[in-house]
């Protein structure tokens, strides 16, 4: 992990490559930010600076785009990001109860990270697996047909 000092940052090299492929096309900003979000789990300020210089877009504009879209985050997420779907199909099947249980067990609210940096919680609007409603995901693992009583056991797997 290298935060901020820019030395031998492999991820940053990868991002620079992605930017290079854009050939200065500013309309690719969201594409670049998606890559950063994917790679880092958030969009650090020093990476924003690099994008700003390479694509010649003001920092303020980049900040504006980042904060507009819910997929982008300015803060790192936990090692395990627990996401509960609050889309309509999941909601009418009781996903709020699942989310409440996750919050209770982890002792944090939506958008927060546990002190040890292990877990973060997020609520999403439909992951598209409505056939499995209510749905909870931990990173890329999908848990369908959830109910609050299953939460503890699932989270324990990641302890």
């Amino acid at each position, binding site marked *: 992990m290298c935060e901020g000092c820019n030395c031998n940052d492999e991820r940053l090299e990868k991002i620079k490559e992605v930017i290079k492929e854009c050939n200065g096309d*500013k*309309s*690719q*900003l*969201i*594409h670049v*930010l*998606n890559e950063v*979000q994917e790679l880092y789990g958030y969009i650090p300020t020093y990476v924003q600076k690099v994008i700003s210089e390479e694509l010649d877009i003001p920092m303020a*504009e980049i900040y*504006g*785009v980042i904060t*507009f*879209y*819910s*997929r*982008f985050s300015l803060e790192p997420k936990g090692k395990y990001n627990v996401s509960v779907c*609050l*889309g*309509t*199909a*999941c*909601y*009418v*099947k009781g996903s709020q*109860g699942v989310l*409440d249980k996750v919050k*209770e067990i982890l002792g944090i609210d939506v958008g927060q990270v546990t002190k040890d940096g292990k877990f973060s919680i997020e609520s*999403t*609007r*439909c*992951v*598209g*697996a*409505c*056939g*499995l*409603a209510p*749905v909870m995901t931990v990173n890329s693992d*999908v848990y*369908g047909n959830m109910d*609050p*009583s299953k939460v503890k056991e699932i989270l324990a797997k990641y302890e």
Partner: protein
Amino acid sequence: MKSIEELSEIRQRTLEEIKLRKDRNYTGKEKHVLVCGGTGCTSSHSMEIIKRLEEKIKEKNIQNVRVVRTGCFGLCARGPIIVVRPEDTFYAMAKVEDVDEIVEKHLVGGEIVERLLCKDIDGTAVKSLDDLNFYKKQHRVVLKNCGLIDPENIDEYIAFDGYKALEKVLTSMTPEEVIKEVSDSGLRGRGGAGFPTGRKWEFAKNSVADQKYVACNADEGDPGAFMDRSVLEGDPHSIVEAMAIAAYAIGATKGYVYVRAEYPIAVKRLQIAIDQAQEYGLLGKNIMGKGFEFDLEIRLGAGAFVCGEETALMESVEGKRGEPRPRPPFPAVKGLFGKPTLLNNVETYANITQIILNGASWFASIGTEKSKGTKVFALGGNINNVGLVEVPMGITLREIVYDIGGGIPNGRKFKAAQTGGPSGGCIPEEHLDTPIDYESLIAIGSMMGSGGLIIMDDSTCMVNLARFFLDFTVDESCGKCPPCRIGTKRMLEILEKMVAGKGQVGDVEKLEKLALNIKRSSLCGLGQTAPNPVLSTIRYFREEYDAHIKEKRCPSGECKAMTKVMIDKEKCKGCSACSRKCPVNAIQGELKQPFEIDQDKCIKCGVCIATCPFKAISRV
């Protein structure tokens, strides 16, 4: 680049290999095992099933069987789905551990594994996919290839008449003729508003410019809707082909597909389709040697509902904040990068190749007088057969809910259906026999919408549902225009007060007044439709609003602030099961004596209600 002759040769050769998937009278020895690779089934491990199938088939050295990963079959509630063709055996909810038995018993022994067969709602096992009630009233046009072909194999798409419509257009039709065919078919926009597609194409064609664009809206933001995703996952080439046809018709050379980044499988398959089409010379310069040029690029969204609105989408494609632009100028005049742009929804495009191949009159023969063709719905919520359905326009909601959807689970009663998501409205039981078409749905205060169809049973509180949707729109309002940014927030505050038991007389009227003003003065479709769920629930469930306000009571018992959880002393046997399960230790008592709930501690979660073996606990 492939010539028309070469494409035709590929078509014939591949069709020979895969026609057994459609041919029920096939008598040869080949078998194809189709496994759903859509998001729903992938989430329940269909990819591991495919891997195990392939391993096992190799291990047993079975020669005449091919495993195919397909797109969505539709019946997501019973996933993962495995279908063996040509006999059309439908295995549902299969697990990796079941694979060995399927291979040994069915593929080697020729004997159906009865215990894994899909069961209909009444519990009878059905042998063939066609026998399932879920499919009987469906009519697949848009989804014709989903669950039939490998979406990552262009040859399979070509085999079932793929790129034949593009060939027909390039070799024998003028742009005017293409637009006339689309106009005559009566196709209307499937994104929800229902604007005549042919007219839209005409506008874009009539704009004069040095550069024009075609764009596809695949930013399916309506929560609970997954029609477009399933088309992109199951039949991506149908979109590539249709966009090329549209580009030819309006005179564009470049296209963009705007897809949600939340749909990784759809994005991946669409990219594969684009790459393959480029390799075959079906995208690029001089397509099919006919001098027509068109190329396609994917642009990813990043989680903003408003980007489903056409002008906001264009801002986002340009890499900016997705804030809507004032109209006019309309996109057909000034769209992407300031150039004339044709924007259609995924499902709209998915109809195009069929209209070109089968003719406008064929398409117009399906559906009702003003709403032609079929509509795909993502059926979800409190319904047995959750999944993807495609029905002819004009079918009634009752048929969708009971015949196709298999009714409401857990012995509950149907209360309402929500179409159009946060922009639409609810349809109560009294309107279950309304035909599904654009005008009829508007008349009863709802809308066609993009295809999300959420069914709610009698445990759903309609006031809380309205609050849920407003919470969504407040969250997703881009903030550019005040009526939407501030108005929806004010509406949400009133609704939050109501569900907390603090509603006041006159609040409903306040909501209605705000709603009307927001609808009238918002800049884009998001704000103009955001109050719809509130208005339609007031229209059909006014008594629930009144109960919340005047009696401080939630009739369905969903609003926890207004309910108490009580133990019936007569029924309680003092077993202590509830007190052991209570997450906040609110239940105390002595064994074999009636227990009691400390109302100050109780969080009304309902765990005790579900736990009590004597049904002694209930909400009052």
